[in-house]
């Protein structure tokens, strides 16, 4: 069963693992028969397409869940909606073939929309975006398993565009790679643009799977 959902403001600080557990418990409250993995420590079978960074909301997230008995998609949605915490909404439910490749393996890219509360003219922001796109490499530091590593952000950035928003806000839309080979982070792009310390909100608006191409 593939579920399209939105993770909103109230839940944006919940980590990926915590979100997975939130789904498991919501399914239990809904009384939906989730299938368990085999083995020594059976786990309910869930898979979320791509981890959403802490602090980012998601409008079109995807979750696969395996049920142990057939339940109509409409019923899955109807039973889930009343037991979801505020900040979690189900938009679509559809049955998918059991043999379909995993969501995580199909992930290719994602769109992010950042609203930046800066008074900076859009033109000057555009200039910095162009510099970013023109750069052959964007070396960044990241903390991984207790040590700092250098990596290149540039190959993960597919497009970045700037538009004027309401009341002096700027809207930055970007498409970043998000595949099993690696994923770009929106907050890193904002940091390169010098915007990370200005109040802003980021939403992931679209996920692109392999077959969407």
């Amino acid at each position, binding site marked *: 069963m593939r579920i399209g959902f939105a993770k909103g403001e109230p*839940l944006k600080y919940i980590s990926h693992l915590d979100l997975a557990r939130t789904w498991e418990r919501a399914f239990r409250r809904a009384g939906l028969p989730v299938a368990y993995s085999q083995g020594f420590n059976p786990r309910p079978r869930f898979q979320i397409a791509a981890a959403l960074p802490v602090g980012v909301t998601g409008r079109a997230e995807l979750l696969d869940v395996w049920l142990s008995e057939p339940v109509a998609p409409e019923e899955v949605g109807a039973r889930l909606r009343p037991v979801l915490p505020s900040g979690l909404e189900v938009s679509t439910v559809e049955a998918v073939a059991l043999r379909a490749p995993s969501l995580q393996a199909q992930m290719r890219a994602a769109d992010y929309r950042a609203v930046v509360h800066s008074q900076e003219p859009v033109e000057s922001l555009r200039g910095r975006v162009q510099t970013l796109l023109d750069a052959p490499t964007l070396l960044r530091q990241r903390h991984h398993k207790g040590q700092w590593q250098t990596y290149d952000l540039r190959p993960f950035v597919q497009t970045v565009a700037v538009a004027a928003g309401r009341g002096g806000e700027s809207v930055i839309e970007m498409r970043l790679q998000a595949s099993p080979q690696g994923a770009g982070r929106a907050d890193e792009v904002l940091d390169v643009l010098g915007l990370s310390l200005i109040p802003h909100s980021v939403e992931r608006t679209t996920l692109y799977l392999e077959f969407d191409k």
Partner: protein
Amino acid sequence: MNVEEILDLILPTVAKPARYTGGEWNSVVKDWEACDVRWALAFPDIYEIGMSNLGLAILYDILNCQPGVLAERVYAPWVDMEQALRAARLPLFGLQSRRSLAEFDVIGFSLPYEHLYTNLLNMLDLAGLPVLALGRDERHPLVIAGGGATYNPEPLADFVDAFALGDGEEVVLDITAAIREAKQAGSTRETLLRQLAEIPGVYVPRLYGVRYHADGTVAEVRPAVPRAPMPVRKRIVATLPPPITRPLVPYVDTIHNRAAIEIQRGCTRGCRFCHAGMVYRPLRERPVDEILDAVDAIVANTGFEEIALLSLSSSDYSQIETLVRELVSRHGAEGADSGPGHLSISLPSLRIESVSVNLMEQLQATGRRSSFTFAPEAATERLRGVINKPISNDDLLSVAEEVYNRGWKTVKLYFMIGHPSQTLDDVAAIVDLALEVRAVGRRALGRKAQVNVSVSTLVPKPHTPFQWVPLADEADVRAQQEYLKDHLRGPGLKLNWYNYQETLLEAVLSRGDRRLGAAIHRAWELGARFDGWSDQFKVEAWRQAFRKTGTEIGFYTWRPRSLDEVFPWDLIDVGVSKEYLARDYQASHRGETRLDCREQCYACGILTAFKEQRAGSPAEAWGCPPLGPS
């Protein structure tokens, strides 16, 4: 910027920001303006620990069920969040409304252990409130504290306006009513405090004066106003109120990320070191059917995949096997007749003598096989006679064998060092016993068998038979810990031990008096907080605070106390009489044991103190015998 905007800048920079955002499933949202008594329920440790505290969850439920009353939670912000809050000048806030604690009518702190005292001061300060009770007035919330550590409230007398002692379920409503009345009447804080002092179970420290002897011991504690009771007797509920069935479901992975139901309160065993075993008397059991119905509701309302059957000694619950069998058949992995199934059941405290093979097999059926924990506390039968925990090594070994045979790989053993009359032989026996358990494990599982030994140091606690016992001194404890470290190494063995300096602080605060307030205040000013966290514990701040305030550590810890000494906590009556404690302490010198007091009443004082509650309860509901004709 408003609070939300500030938080959006702060939260991405701190660890686990969801600690500070609330909104958990089953959290209660009430209209601020429509409520006239607003409680902030404060737990002075991090979210992950505070959310696992059942006491606070019960009060949250009770208060929010009242019309016109609102209760929000607040936990101690971790050091990164504290820094961020101070930098942004954002006051510490209630999780739901995001309003400053200063806007609430009352802040109720839960204090299960002494290491939280500096965090209490810090949370008040983070809300912009004066930390000293006398520095606060009608403009400020009332500060109330309760919980296990407050049975000796004196070290916090400078900071807390009133203490609620004993079971909180009823007294919290009495306090709410008094606050409402005072608000409506426009009473002064002084009037409100005097009214609170008349509620059974409430202690208002500023209404009492303490006189000391030249040697520093207490000469007399006397109420300064006529209507303040002396002593202050703790409150109890005659029967346990219905369990909460809509507990909060956290997003963040808390230390006990599971549902919990209290199957009984109190304990009938009488281990002489055990604070909880004395102060939570009498034993009151919850009926099996009530538990089963509640678990059905909890599972449906929360989706938790684990339930803990809480009690000071779960395996002593009279119908434990029936209960677990029925839970497994209703909610186990296979054959769940209703609900999602796959519920694992945990019994956090099992006694060696009451764990049956049957019970083990049922627990095994719930599928979880992590470890099995037992607390022999002492390794020789002689010393177990002294501490009144009479189990035999043979029983322990045969239970361990059954455990390993059923596939559990790890047995955890809890011991204490520093018991009165303990010798090096008793310490060496811990090693021997751990090795024997490992040998038993290896016969069942080969080299996969694991024994984890945890050795803490006895901290003599108020209101226990060991309240007269000196704390073991540092050189001895360190030598014993070194011995254990040298001898408990090798495959399949793991040893946990505790820093003596942390034990020492707990010991000072446990049997402290109100003069310690100055040291606590100074230590907090010097940066002490999260004293229970080894990585945060600032021993130098405490040393300096004790020095600057002229606090003699030895007076509170290593000093022998005479049987007729008046203790600072004697003004709190927990129901168990001081005469009984003294008799039991003397019995410990003779190695005399007192078995389960359900079998035979030793007249600890509870039945005298709570005669009326006993008379109003069914015979089988209490561990104490029904009252005879008088």
